[in-house]
């Protein structure tokens, strides 16, 4: 069963991904940008899995969704830690 809100969430996530792609030359100048991007990639995977679980492999994709959320959160935490502790004035 596909919920409308899940599709909206996926669409917004894809839009943000397009925005990131368009600004990739500047995005790479964000400190520890790879960690942050991985966090976002897994967030998107979770959103995609949420939508797809309504069509096939509901159990497997449901697990994937929640695992992706965990990985995304962990990546995000690992991005916040060095950024908050960094001594330099400039975050980029």
């Amino acid at each position: 069963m596909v919920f409308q809100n899940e599709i909206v969430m996926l669409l917004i996530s894809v839009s943000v991904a397009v925005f990131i792609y368009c600004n990739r030359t500047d995005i790479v100048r964000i400190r520890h940008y790879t960690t942050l991007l991985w966090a976002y990639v897994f967030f998107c995977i979770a959103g995609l899995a949420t939508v797809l679980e309504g069509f096939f492999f509901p159990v497997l994709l449901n697990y994937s969704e929640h695992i992706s959320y965990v990985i995304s959160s962990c990546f995000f935490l690992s991005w916040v830690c060095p950024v908050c502790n960094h001594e330099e004035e400039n975050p980029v």
Partner: protein
Amino acid sequence: MSLITALDSLAFLASFSALVLLITKRTQCRTKFEGKTFIGLLLCLGSIYYFFLIIEWSHISVSFDPIEDVFGALLPMSWGFLFYTLLQDVHRADLRVNKLRYKSLVQNIPGAVYQCTYDQDYTMEFMSDEITDISGYPKTDFIANHVRSFASIIHPEDREHVAKTVSESIAERKLFSLEYRIIHRDGSVQWVYERGRARSTDTSKPIILEGVIMDITQKKTLLEQKQQAEQQIFQLQKMDAIGQLAGGIAHDFNNQLTALLGYADLLAMRLKEKKHELKLLGSMHLSIHHARKLTEQLLAFSRKGKIHHEVVDLHQVVHDVKLIMERSIDKKIDIRTVLSAPVATTMGDPSQIHNMLLNVALNARDAMPDGGEMLFESDEVIFDEMHAKAQKLNIASGTYMCLSVTDTGCGIDAQTIQYIFEPFFTTKEEGKGTGMGLSAAYGTMKSHKGAIAAYSEVGRGTTMKLYFPVTHGVAPKHNNIITNSPHHGKGHVLFVDDNQTVCDVAAMMLAQLGYDVTVFTKPQKAVGFFKDHFHAIQFVIIDMIMPHMNGHELYIALKDIQPDVKVLLASGYTLNGEAQKALDAGVQGFMQKPFTLDQLSSALTHVLA
């Protein structure tokens, strides 16, 4: 607890930890990046979202679906905002870096960078701090023409040139570069170089000029000094070249004059009874005498004349000249002397110095046709190496007596003053001056290791400064020897000169004086003859400059044959150089060409004595 609940708990824990970290480190974060609000928001949303997921999968019979949906939609949006604000941070950082770079560039550019509106006063919109070093005024004075406009400190004589160049470059849409003067805050004049361009030539908007102004005063001063030094070298080389030429001409001319003078003297002796012819000969003699004066001046200029070296009292020379001038010039000219030099003696030729000072004084007289004041001053000047260089007199360091002759006449303009020491340069009417007086003075001063300099202001007068190297000693007293008639003698004279005419006239003059003469135009032949007849020859007269063998070499050759040979050198050239060497080697005397019968007779008497 199911696996999914555990996973959601983990996600919640991670998000919540990050949120706690962000809150605890907020102070550090505050200055680091602007995106912290959205990080916080994202973390809050994530924590809440995962919290709802935990509840949902914990089989708690409470439905949060609508709230979960809202948070589910907000979560990717906050991701978007997070990336957006982080990019803003990147751009802000770029801006900061660019600002710093720009500031550093502006500060380190060797000059003042400016931006101004193209109006009458060049209203300044921006100006870098360097302008303070260049103009002495703080930059804030110029911004918006707050205290003064930059145009107001441009030298009044250069304003038009600056305005013209800038307007032309705007019209042609080209860069402009110009050099002009500004008035420094301390009143001094500074040279600046400006390079700039108009940012826009759109006439509907005010034109903005941008550029850089650099201080080039030092460079300009060095350049001027270099140009002056080059000009000085050029002038010296030119004077030397002219001197060489003049000396050569005078030498050859003297040979001709020797013949003329000799023949005139001989004729005069033969025409003793014919008064009319003698009168004509007297006129001829006078013309030759004038011609000889001219060649003497040429030789003085070229420093190839005969110089006696003895101690000369310059104050005495001034008194002598003053006496002559007082007797001969217009009474409207007042002559004064202020002789304060403690030591007024120099080593030199009194007759040349006397003539030179007379020439300078006569020039001063000629500059005051309506009367005025002629002032002779003397003072001691000590030149160290730097001072000597700075004065551009081309003299060695040491103590000099500066003898200045000042007139209150018409003065000489800056253009003319450059040429006054050149031979035959005169501003006098045709026939009133040969143009040799000051050039002879120049040569005389050079040959006395001194210098001459002229300072003049049109309408106010001229000062000629003569620098003589000071020598301590007592000047000898001179008695004028007047020879009434030539002394006759006896003996065999060998006369050697490469000029046949001079040989002919000399032979006749010597014969007239009672001597037997043998002449040679080739020195080698003279040596051969002398080898065979040295017992019979009483003395030898030798020309100094001859091809293949000069007078000095000939003297050495003759001396090898007969060590006590009596030799008299005759030359249209100098006593310096080779002739001086010959005198030092033992030659008995020197006779300057052209010579009269009397002078020849006196020289021979002197040598034989």
